[in-house]
């Protein structure tokens, strides 16, 4: 495949990153998708919109998040200097709120009076419910019944924040079905409703829009690493479910040839077992939820369920820009198993006094492999995109500990 002039110029006007992306939605939604695109194009060029975003990012989310040199961990791994981008210190404990803030500001600008969202682990649902409380908009969150059962604390948080959480029993009752149900709601309530999608997927302009909101992560890292080290990092590492935290970290660095970039998918029980969530390592291109991308699917093109100890990575697709970066070879996508992520989770607690979410524990599991192969002068930046409080029950269960 021919190397593009820039890796940062996508998508094209019709929302494609190479052959990926696009707008595969029902006609009922199409006029609305075009409205969102128009509004987004205006907002992104409006200094007033950026001022609003920056204000809440600083005073409400707590940005910029620190870039922290994890010394003990680096020592233990015995190779590259490892930095954590501390997006787990954001209000609500993950990177998700960068995006929900941006989208709710857009929804207000469009005069929408009702917000809907899908959620898997509940992190995006909590981040959406949070900004809806902040801006006093009614919020409906669709969540698979299976996920509701295993993420009770987040369900309660959303309710405390005033959101209505609607259990989804259709299909496999997980994140993909929650997204189907949110799309069904949107089709039925197009006039007043804005759909806040939680990752860099969905029909154009969502993948690009969510990426741009999350790029605050990578933009900050560029400044922070220049201050700390006077140069760019040698490698970036982030975990990938839909891929929004990764896209946010990666995008500002895509044209810096010296920066190696690694996306870490969830291999669950192992790619070879078929029980995993690694769309790139173990899936094929297809069309779902408004975009063409790599998907987990069977021989008949039916979507199959993802499996991961991390509910946030448990999605059978991936953002279309990742699919493109995979095909053109700019980003290297790897996968780590549940067991490897658990080991990394414990390592992070023990060496840094940080309980990470299981999602970035996947990124750390790859850093564990990568850092020792690098010299002590080299620098790795990993996105620590969420804190682990939500996961302590799942980890206890996996470790066979009764609480």
């Amino acid at each position: 495949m021919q190397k593009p002039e820039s890796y940062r110029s996508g998508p094209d006007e019709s929302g494609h990153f190479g052959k990926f992306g696009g707008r595969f939605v029902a006609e009922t939604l199409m006029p609305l998708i075009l409205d969102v695109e128009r509004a987004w194009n205006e907002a992104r060029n409006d200094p007033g919109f950026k001022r609003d975003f920056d204000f809440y990012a600083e005073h409400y989310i707590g940005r910029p998040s620190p870039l922290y040199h994890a010394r003990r961990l680096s020592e233990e791994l015995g190779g590259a200097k490892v930095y954590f981008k501390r997006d787990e210190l954001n209000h609500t404990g993950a990177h998700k709120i960068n995006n929900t803030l941006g989208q709710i500001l857009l929804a207000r600008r469009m005069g929408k009076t009702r917000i809907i969202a899908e959620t898997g682990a509940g992190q995006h649902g909590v981040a959406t419910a949070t900004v809806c409380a902040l801006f006093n908009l009614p919020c409906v969150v669709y969540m698979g019944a299976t996920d509701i059962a295993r993420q009770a604390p987040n369900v309660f948080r959303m309710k405390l924040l005033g959101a209505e959480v609607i259990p989804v029993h259709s299909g496999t009752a997980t994140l993909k079905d929650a997204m189907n149900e949110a799309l069904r709601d949107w089709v039925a309530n197009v006039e007043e409703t804005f759909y806040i999608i939680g990752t860099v997927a969905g029909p154009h302009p969502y993948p690009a829009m969510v990426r741009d909101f999350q790029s605050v992560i990578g933009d900050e890292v560029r400044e922070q690493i220049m201050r700390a080290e006077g140069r760019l990092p040698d490698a970036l590492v982030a975990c990938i479910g839909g891929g929004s935290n990764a896209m946010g970290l990666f995008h500002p660095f895509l044209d810096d040839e010296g920066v190696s970039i690694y996306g870490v998918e969830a291999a669950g029980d192992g790619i070879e077992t078929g029980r995993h969530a690694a769309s790139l390592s173990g899936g094929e291109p297809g069309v779902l939820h408004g975009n063409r991308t790599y998907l987990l699917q069977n021989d008949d093109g039916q979507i199959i369920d993802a499996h991961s100890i991390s509910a946030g990575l448990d999605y059978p697709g991936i953002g279309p820009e990742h699919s493109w970066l995979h095909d053109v070879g700019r980003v290297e996508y790897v996968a780590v198993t549940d067991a490897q992520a658990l080991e990394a989770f414990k390592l992070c607690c023990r060496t840094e006094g940080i309980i990470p979410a299981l999602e970035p524990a996947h990124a750390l599991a790859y850093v564990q492999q990568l850092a020792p192969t690098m010299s002590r002068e080299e620098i790795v930046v990993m996105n620590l995109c969420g804190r682990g409080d939500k996961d302590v029950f799942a980890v206890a269960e996996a470790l066979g500990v009764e609480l």
Partner: protein
Amino acid sequence: MTARKPASRLERRFEQLRAESRPALVTFVTAGDPDPETGFAVFSSLARAGADIIELGMPFSDPMADGPVVQEAGQRALAAGMTLRKTLDQVRRYREQDDETPVILMGYYNPIHHFGPESFLDAAVEAGVDGLIIVDLPVEEDDELCHPAMARGIHWIRLATPTTDDARLPRVLTNTSGFVYYVSVLGVTGTRSAQDEEIRRAVERLKSHTDLPIAVGFGIRSPEQVAKIGAVADAVVVGSAIVSLVAENLDADKRPNSVLIDKVSDFVASLAAATRGT
């Protein structure tokens, strides 16, 4: 001067209906629901009971535009081993008994994408499929399947909705053939119903933009509704109400009872009677 012979089953069917001065009854069922054999028996019973056009749903794991009734039908079919290839096989088999009734496949793009769009279209032509309705392929993605389908003479039937405004409508109608399917409500299949007056105005608006027949669907479930909407539209689509009947006549293990086909036939016959004003 002799009139040009209409090229397709679908065009011949609408020509015949115009001669009879009545609207078409379009019936939707999910292929292979609740299992491939029973599903085929249901599919085969529709035209005999009076359906003019058959829409056959291609089961998909993630049917974003469908309500619970059609979602569950798809799940039943998939659980019983239905596949896209078997759906095509059933159309081929159906053609052995009926080479007149148009059969339109309706569904979502991914199974076709996975099958290979070109191979799928070749197989569809060979099986005797007359048209396609692919919910998640809007005009913006016409290069995917619309253009190659029309090049093979398969009708590309597009959905128009209450949100399709006058500025957008001409674009939506370009590359639409066979008929236009007007989705009369904002929402998914089998849920709410539109007001008669809204539908009448919508059909008039469409007619001012196209000469194609206009079918109206979503939320139509009784002979009374069929009669009313049939008075303003060229075709009336009934789907979830028939699929519900299938669901109601299954035992706990999803096996059909002995009266399922009769129940479906009686209901379809009552809908057909409504298109004939009888």
